[in-house]
């Protein structure tokens, strides 16, 4: 039984390690120890669900974690992590930290970017047409959800080449993802086409369900912007 409990801790650690910070991992193990150390499929599913809800891990990742956890529990191979020992060692070595910065979780809501822009940026956006301002803000919101930004630009370049479109804008954007100077002078139709390509790339990177979720959240955040009263981000979609 103790071996099974240990293996369960090890499996949980391995499964959640890519998505949680160290403090959160320990908390996840603590949750396991407190109420989920029984050997049944429903227990495993309930545990994964509990931790995912606790740390806001998306549904797509949650589903893959069910399978991964089960696989680790049923494999015979030795798992080299002993999370309980790690926790004990940590407690002996230094005092417990109250809070820790959380690791970004794939496809979960990223913090909404500040609505307050630096003064010089505000001056600049004031002179730009509303569709350009909304586009820039929309893209900033979306990119914040991506764990792997280079993958986005790689796919965008590929899509542009496939459609025999110019790759200039994508190249300029890729060189500095947070700057949108290159959007000056572009009309609504061009920007809408870009938004669609970004959507396609998001689908390739994270799947259509997560992509839809990111887009809807980004749009909701965008609609708080004053410029969106003149130009709704929905017009890009």
């Amino acid at each position, binding site marked *: 039984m103790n071996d099974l409990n240990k293996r369960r801790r090890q499996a949980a650690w391995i499964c959640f390690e890519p998505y949680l910070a160290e403090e959160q991992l320990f908390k996840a193990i603590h949750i396991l120890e407190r109420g989920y150390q029984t050997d049944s499929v429903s227990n495993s599913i309930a545990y994964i669900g509990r931790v995912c809800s606790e740390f806001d891990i998306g549904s797509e990742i949650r589903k893959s974690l069910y399978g991964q956890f089960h696989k680790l529990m049923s494999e015979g191979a030795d798992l080299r992590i002993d999370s309980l020992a790690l926790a004990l060692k940590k407690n002996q070595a230094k005092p417990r930290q109250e809070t820790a910065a959380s690791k970004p979780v794939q496809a979960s809501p990223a913090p909404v970017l500040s609505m307050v822009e630096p003064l010089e940026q505000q001056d600049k956006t004031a002179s730009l047409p509303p569709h350009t301002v909304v586009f820039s803000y929309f893209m900033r919101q979306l990119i914040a959800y991506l764990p792997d930004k280079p993958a986005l630009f790689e796919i965008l370049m590929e899509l542009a080449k496939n459609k025999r479109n110019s790759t200039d804008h994508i190249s300029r954007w890729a060189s500095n993802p947070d700057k949108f100077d290159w959007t000056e002078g572009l009309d609504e139709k061009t920007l809408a086409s870009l938004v669609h390509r970004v959507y*396609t790339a998001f689908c390739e990177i994270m799947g259509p369900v997560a992509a839809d979720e990111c887009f809807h959240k980004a749009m909701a955040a965008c609609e708080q912007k004053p410029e969106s009263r003149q130009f709704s981000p929905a017009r890009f979609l």
Partner: protein
Amino acid sequence: MNELQVIWMAMCVMLVFFMQAGFALLESGASRAKNSINVLMKNYMDMCLGGLIFWSVGFGLMFGDTSTGWLGTNHFFQQQFTTAEAVKLAYQTMFAATAATIVSGAVAERMHFSTYLIFSAFVTGIIYPVFGSWAWNEHGWLRALGFVDFAGSTVVHSIGGWCALAGIIVLGPRLGRYSRQGETREIPGHNLPLVALGGFILWLGWFGFNGGSISSLEKNNLGLVLLNTHLGGSAGALSALLFMYFRKQPVLLSATVNGSIAGLVSITAGAAYLSPLAAVAVGFTGGVFYLLAVNLLDRLQLDDVVGAVAVHGVGGVWGTLAVALFPQGAFSFSTLLVQMTGIVACFVWAFPTAFLFFKLLDNYLGVRASTLDEQRGLDYTEHYEVGYPEFQKRLDSNAA
């Protein structure tokens, strides 16, 4: 056909018609909300169009007089018939519509409505009745060999399944369905209660689908047919559930419902001939084969939204083979060979024909909706309606 049989068959016409509602609900529930109307329209209209096409052309090809055993040559645009003949035509029209509507679920969320209707007309006008004439026409060459398909495991369901397979190959997967690393991403349906309700309605309709197929030879087996139908469906659902449970996978409603449909498809070929125990075995195995086939299709990156190929194509094959594997008398290799001949003939006819027609449609009209339409949802882009206007944001380019 005596009066009682005519009345029973007329009731079965209504039951099989109602299966269209079952397909519509199951497929719509298994799709995303932004495509729900498009799926329903495809189901609704392939029933309407299929009915007209089959009455005008298909019935004659399938049941008309034939000297060769390959195609019927009369009874087109049938105007005069006895009551029994009219009921038979109506009944067979419902079968034809069932074969066509199987395709709509597989190709959901990315196929143009107009080209789907054209393809559906081709299925009910050519693909289904031609094979049907081989297997069910009095002088059909397959029937002459001794091919047995009581209510259409191969004639209806496999035909639909192979046409669906051709469709998903030509169309390709939905945007983002498979990652570049080959990982399959789930795209859950928007309304699983609808999926369950659709399953229930299909099951109800199946009593008419199988029960109405009794002829004067099998009329004494009506009770056995209805019992076997129910046992097959029940066993299929149970096997799907146990398969998922023992593989320590989440036990999904959608897969369980599909398991029962696979069981129903499997029992369809032999419902009048199998013992109840054999019916349980056939339905049970059908459920397992369905889940294995779904895994295979995903590994091949063939995106079938509702599992139509696995349920109807593979289930149909198994059900037809089962007629020979669970005989009432002694096992016969020649019977098995005949059944296999029918299965192969069905695939060889349906799949390449459907594939070529899809390719033709794609070249001249384009079958695949654009990625922009896929993003916006086919409800809006094809029909200018949304299924849930109070809950869905209209992604309307004219919105200020």
